[in-house]
């Protein structure tokens, strides 16, 4: 039995302790905004916040997050994610959309740490998030826009 906090609510999981957090979120909690893309932490579509840091949920066994706080795209709050989502909408970043929950999570996490990122900061923070539609030009632009919004 694993207990954890997901989007502010305590949840318990009593299945296979090796089950990746991703599948607990999706199959058991029906939090489907977190996506499956590769299963080996190569694409970032499954990115969630684990105790405040971005984490690939597809390779995170549920047994390792006992007592942790997990935030998914559905539970993300705060000025950073709001600024990111507004910037995403402002220039229509998404195409197919499958990777974008993960992109938004990684971008918000970046802005929480670096409020005014350079292009290099963006590369470092976002290179783990694959977008097969290659919306990268707009992801970069939208992160800069979100940073400016946060500066006020």
């Amino acid at each position, binding site marked *: 039995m694993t207990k954890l906090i997901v989007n502010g609510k305590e949840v318990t999981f009593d299945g296979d302790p090796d089950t990746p957090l991703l599948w607990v979120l999706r199959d058991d909690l029906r939090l489907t905004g977190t996506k499956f893309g590769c299963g080996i932490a190569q694409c970032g579509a499954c990115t969630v916040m684990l105790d405040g840091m971005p984490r690939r949920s597809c390779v995170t066994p549920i047994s390792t997050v006992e007592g942790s706080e997990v935030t998914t795209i559905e539970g993300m709050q705060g000025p950073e994610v709001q600024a990111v989502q507004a910037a995403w909408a402002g220039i229509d970043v998404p*195409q197919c959309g499958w990777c974008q929950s993960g992109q938004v999570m990684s971008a918000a996490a970046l802005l929480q740490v670096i409020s005014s990122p350079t292009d290099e900061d963006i*590369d470092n923070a*976002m290179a783990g998030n694959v977008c097969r539609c290659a919306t990268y030009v707009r992801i970069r632009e939208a992160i800069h826009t979100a940073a400016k919004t946060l500066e006020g």
Partner: protein
Amino acid sequence: MTDHDTRMPTGLANPTRRGFLAGGAGLTLALMLPLSGGRGAAVAQAQAPFAPNAFIRIAADDTVTVLIKHIEMGQGPYTGLATLVAEELDADWSQMRAEGAPGNDALYANLAFGAQGTGGSTAMANSYMQMRKAGAAARAMLVAAAAVEWGVPIGEITVAKGIVSHAASGRSSGFGALAQGAAAMEVPADPPVKDPAQFTLIGTDRPRLDTVAKSNGTAQFTMDVYRDGMLTVLIAHPLRFGAVVASYDDSAALAVPGVEMVRQIPSGIAVYATGTYAAMKGREALVVQWDDSAAELRSSAELYDMLSSEAKTGGRVVQESGDLAALDGAATLHEAKFRFPYLAHAPMEPLDAVIEVKAGKAEMWFGSQFPSFDKPAAAAALGFAPEDVAINVLLAGGSFGRRAQGSAHLAAEAGAVAKAAGRDGCFKVVWTREDDLRGGYYRPVTVHRMRAGLDAAGALIGWDNTVANQSIMAGTPMEAMMQNGLDPTSYEGANDLPYNVGAHRLGWAQVQSPVSVLWWRSVGHTHTAFAVEVFLDELLEKAGKDPVQGRLDLLKPEAVRERGVIEAVAKLANWRGRTADGKGYGFAFAKSFGTYVAEVVEVEDRGGFPHVTRVWCAVDCGIAVNPNIIRAQMEGGIGYALGTALFSEITLEPGGTVAQGNFDSYRMLRINEMPAVEVEIIASAADPTGVGEPGVPALAPALANAWRGLTGTATYQLPFAAPLS
């Protein structure tokens, strides 16, 4: 490699039976009052005798919902087709909504195919007049209803931004309050549409209808569908193409908690479980013996040798003009062989489908790109009549051609899974990334053999090109589209050259293999544009000519739009030749799917490997309905093509197994490798053509040309990274 740390609004209305059907010219339309929402209602509606043909619904709350007959997989038809309706309806963009139309041939056929399906970048082109007429008819009926209600002449009523007005009486109304009256009006058979000069939405930018849901996790894709009692099903597929199950032992799989059953189906062994992870573990525990007697056992290296031999034969004549004997007297004879690997599409959402069987009927939810093929295929696997299978077309997390299957193999597999269960129930078939990359349906391996000659003055006097590859259409329902046994998707782009090349011959050598192949974003142009534009660039260099001016000089007189994009991109990029300031610049042009694209690539040499810093792109796709989506598709097409040119190949190892399995071995472009992109859209009054694919073909040849200019190294095989020796 870099290191890594470890809804759409569904709300389909339950329609009242106020739908009206307009016949003729493919125009269908219904205005109706929604009562309640619910997934699957569109299918119910499509089967209801009174309310079938609906593209437009206007609700009491003024929202206008457009049923989109083309799958939304990122390329923008939800927004694009809704724009066409909103334009003629004089709606306000904020009241517009989009939903995927259900599978229904009669109602939602692609007018370019005569069947329901999305492909060949045809969505906008075939819908352009149909959706405008639908919007114009709805507007006419709203106006007629207002005229009756207000007792004023139709001709005095105006509509703007979703408000119907009569200036003299000062009366006005939103659409919702008029919807019921409008539904009782006669449907105009052939309503007039606007002169393009009157357009207020077409040609301007507005937000995509799917952006918000795709930024906050609420957009619903196939994998997000969960239904009561649903089992998740993974299938163990053969390790080699053409292999089949010889025997299997499922005892260990059945011992995995959560695994409910294991069944043999035509495509492999299916493991049914209560969750995805249990299905994965169950499948790992399976022991399967495969019968490889009919399998492809050759390696990629062996296949290339075979293709090279076939290309030398010259193949069957596709196109021939003039006498290639002219090459015998050439002052300069140039020859090259180009080699292209298998490519997987690798959409971010792997293949998946949900199927529910209840009392002899089936309902499916998935990103069905060819509902016209998917429905009968699922029905056949189930032993049902096609009309007893309903398809809800959901958003797809990318496709790039992968979901457009002439074989309908995924729908057939889902049907087989449901059938083999031996009971009613709901089943979600999920492919993992390994299933995706090892599962075939690749862009076919291809070899181009090229020969051309220049005279003493450097003029082209002959061009001889043989393409060797496997047909995409042969052996599928698409075979009917082959012409005299020729598959145009094998060589499109190498025929009908826009350049005067002297004597010209194009041959095609068709090869056979059990490996399944499929169209991959821009199809034949993925290799023909490379072979033609790289080879031409070398010839121009040998003749001492500039890549841009040299091409302009070769253009046929009728190649006006080709000239337009070539000149535009040269200006946009401030073209200065093959090198400047230590960087290489390459040019390429490609027309595909009726759209003209020219690109310039700027490349740096970083440790012997190309790094693309900037790309300029000029595109002529006729009337630019949504310029921002067109720019996005060019940017995305360029990124998709660049990652592929640099990194991507699927290779068969000796014995026929696939070497790659996931994104660690089938490398994707990442943000730090994405160049800045500048796009210019050519102003045009021509009818719109597609943009989903045409950004792709010119990128790789422009990159190869830039790299050759910078380093002197020619590129005859892709990808740039670690080519197969």
